[in-house]
């Protein structure tokens, strides 16, 4: 798996222009916005870079050769999840550092514990989103995955709209939020982590199944 990691690192960072552009955009965003949005944004950018390696791998039927290397399909999927998680975490970390640095330059009042919590939260949310993207890229391929992502975001939007429109659901959400506010933070955090791990595990197994069904 070390070889696969190395391949992805080379693919992502051999183009220095992309990395510099990525840093420039992040710093620009941090100056332009007075919020922790930058943390999630850099996490997302790094995650997208990581997922882009699937496109590189698939280009010109490259997957056939990769599947002949001493790394089976399970190793490939495992590596993609780990690499993407590490990239998202690194992105959120870079975002947090940029946020603190820019806040210091702008002389903004900071609440480090709260901001770091945001960083961790964004890393988790982004890694769930990126895990879904891995599944879609592996299952539908690079071209079809764009359409699939569009459809998924459309469905999410429609669901959110439906929740807003249906009064019963709204009041349900309000009472759920009320329960949450009375629940100790440690319980919420533990439940959140279990939920997070479960979602990632489901996406991982679905990705593995999709790759195992594929022919090259």
């Amino acid at each position, binding site marked *: 798996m*070390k*070889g*696969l990691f*190395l*391949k992805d690192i*080379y*693919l992502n960072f*051999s*183009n220095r222009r992309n990395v510099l552009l990525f840093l420039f955009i992040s710093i620009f965003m941090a100056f332009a916005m007075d919020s922790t949005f930058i943390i999630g944004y850099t996490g997302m950018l790094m995650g997208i870079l990581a997922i882009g390696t699937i496109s*590189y*791998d698939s*280009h*010109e*039927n*490259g*997957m*056939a*050769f*990769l*599947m*002949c*290397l*001493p*790394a*089976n399909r399970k*190793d490939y999927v495992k590596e993609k999840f780990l690499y993407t998680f590490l990239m998202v975490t690194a992105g959120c970390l870079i975002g947090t550092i940029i946020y603190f640095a820019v806040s210091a330059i702008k002389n903004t009042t900071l609440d480090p514990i709260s901001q770091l919590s945001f960083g961790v939260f964004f890393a988790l949310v982004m890694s769930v989103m990126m895990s879904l993207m891995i599944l879609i890229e592996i299952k539908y391929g690079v071209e079809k995955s764009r359409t699939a992502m569009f459809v998924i975001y459309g469905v999410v939007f429609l669901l959110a709209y439906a929740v807003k429109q249906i009064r019963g659901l709204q009041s349900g959400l309000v009472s759920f939020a009320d329960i949450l506010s009375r629940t100790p933070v440690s319980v919420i955090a533990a439940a959140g982590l279990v939920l997070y791990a479960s979602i990632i595990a489901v996406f991982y197994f679905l990705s593995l199944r999709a790759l195992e069904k594929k*022919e*090259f």
Partner: protein
Amino acid sequence: MIQINGLKKKYKDFSLDISFDLPVGRVSGLVGKNGAGKSTTLKAILGLIKTDGGSVKVFGKDAVRLDAEDRQKMGVALSDSAFSGYLTVKQIKNILKNMYRSFDEDMFEDLCKKMDLPFNKQTREFSTGMKAKLRVIAALCHKAKLLVMDEPTSGLDVEARNEVLDILREYLAKDEEASLLISSHISSDLEGLCDDIYLIDEGRLLLHEQTDQLLDKYGVIKTDDAVFEKLDKDHILAYKKEKFGYSAFTDEKEYYKENYPDLIIENGNIDDLILIMTGGKKK
């Protein structure tokens, strides 16, 4: 090394049904026209496709169950697939070093230098020939016991083809237990390399013969219509109508030389084998 027993694979307008073995230390060539089933057979061996019947065993294990440990012992060069073109040779070397326990870094560097492959250039900027050379080199530098190569000399000029074939011969000479299964449509490549040849056409195995037997005993009879009509056809495998009369492929050229001294009989080669056996009428 490889046992294929009744391998079946069906596509929309093509079906493969084939059986053969590749013993330890054997160098076998798969020949046939484009679309004959060579690449499909190799993909089944590599576990890249699911089969519709029969069994494909590699190292005694089902090909679809080959694990990372088995693949340490395999060297693969595919005609239409390789590492991303955005990687350089130097990066590919580092990746392979971290993938194969027995990766021979010096051998990789020496071969790349010998083949004039630049280390710091992205391989997407390479010519077709340079890419083909790199694919072969990448398959050879980790002491693989089983080499599977699909059209490894495709896109190479004569000089480069000979260089690649020399590397393969050298590798096989060093390790007599290493086996090679190679497909090619360039017959001369296989004649000088393979112990035996499998001819595939429309997904079926048409002929299996030792290469030296093929070159010694097989021949092409070229004759006009009248002589062909009277010819004893017991040892004619296939024939083809030509402008001048007939070309007939025989597995007993000495018989015809002795009994028909006036006949024009050319030595057999793999090109004739493909042309007449797949394009002509079989007896």
